[in-house]
C-alpha cells in the first residue's frame, strides 16, 4: 500500500515474479523514516527476495534514513534475499561515500542495471 506524508511518498511496485520495488519521492529524515521502515518491513514480511529501493526522487537523506536502509539490507540478507539501491543523486552518493556505506550498499545507476546485475533482486 502506498504511504504518504507531506514530505515522503513511498510507492510499492511489482517489477517481476521475484522482485519488488519501492519508489521513494521526497525527504527521508527523522520525521519520515518510520514510513520507509514500515514499507521495507512489509516487503520483508511478505517474503520478497529481491527489493529495489528507488532513490531517484529522494532530495534529502539523513542518518535516520541511512539506518533504515542498513536495517533493510540486513533483514533482506537474513531471509536469503537482497536489497539494492537505485539511482541516488550525486549528493546522496556522496553521503554514501563519506560514511563508507557505499561498501555495504549495493548501488545501481538505474533499475535496468540493478536487474541486469543478477542476484536475488535481479533477473
Amino acid at each position: 500500500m502506498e504511504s504518504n506524508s507531506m514530505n515522503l511518498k513511498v510507492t510499492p511496485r511489482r517489477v517481476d515474479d521475484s522482485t519488488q520495488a519501492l519508489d521513494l519521492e521526497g525527504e527521508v529524515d527523522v520525521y519520515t523514516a518510520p514510513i520507509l521502515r514500515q514499507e521495507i518491513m512489509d516487503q520483508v514480511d511478505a517474503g520478497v527476495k529481491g527489493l529495489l529501493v528507488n532513490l531517484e526522487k529522494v532530495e534529502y537523506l539523513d542518518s535516520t534514513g541511512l539506518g533504515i536502509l542498513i536495517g533493510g539490507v540486513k533483514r533482506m540478507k537474513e531471509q536469503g534475499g537482497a536489497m539494492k539501491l537505485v539511482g541516488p543523486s550525486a549528493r546522496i552518493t556522496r553521503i554514501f561515500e563519506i560514511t563508507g556505506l557505499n561498501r555495504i550498499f549495493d548501488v545501481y545507476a538505474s533499475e535496468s542495471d540493478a536487474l541486469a546485475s543478477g542476484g536475488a533482486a535481479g533477473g
Partner: protein
Amino acid sequence: MSSSSSDASPSSGGIPTPGTVTLTIPCSPEFVGTARLTILGVAGRMGFSYDQVEDIRLAVGEACANAIERSNRRRGGPPADGQTPEHSISIRSSVDAGRLVVEVEDDVPSGNAAAGAAAAALGGAGDDVNPVELGALLMEILVDEVSVEPATEGSGTRVRLVKYAAGDS
C-alpha cells in the same frame, strides 16, 4: 516589492552582513524540516557552494535529530500523536566575515544514560552502526568544527557547528 539591481544582492561577492538568526522549534521530528529551511536561508547568504550549503543543512538536521533521539530515549519512546513535545531545540546561526557558526541547543536533561550521548557517539568507534553514531560521524565530516558541550542554561546539550566560508570540506 520590485526587483532590485544586481549590486544590491547580498551574494554578489561582498562580505555578508554580520548577524544572528535564532529559531526555536519543539523537540519533535516534524519540525526539523523547518530548521533545515532556515539554515538554508542563512547559509545561502554566505557565498557557500551548493555542496557546502547542503553539508550545513544536513549537519544541522543531524544535530536536531540527535536531540530528538535523546528526548525519545529519556521518555522511552516517541511522543504519542497529538502530544505536546516537552522539550525544545534552539538553533542559533551567527554569520560573520569568514564563517557560519550554528549552535543547536536543547533542553533535554542530560542525566544518567543520556548524558553526553552525542559526545560519546562522536568519540565512539563501536562495531554496531546506529543512527546516532552515523549522525555524529556525518556532523564531523560535513562541517569544519564540531563540539558538544552542556547547554548554557539548564541541563540540556549544545552542539556547536562551524563552517568556514573558504573551506571546501
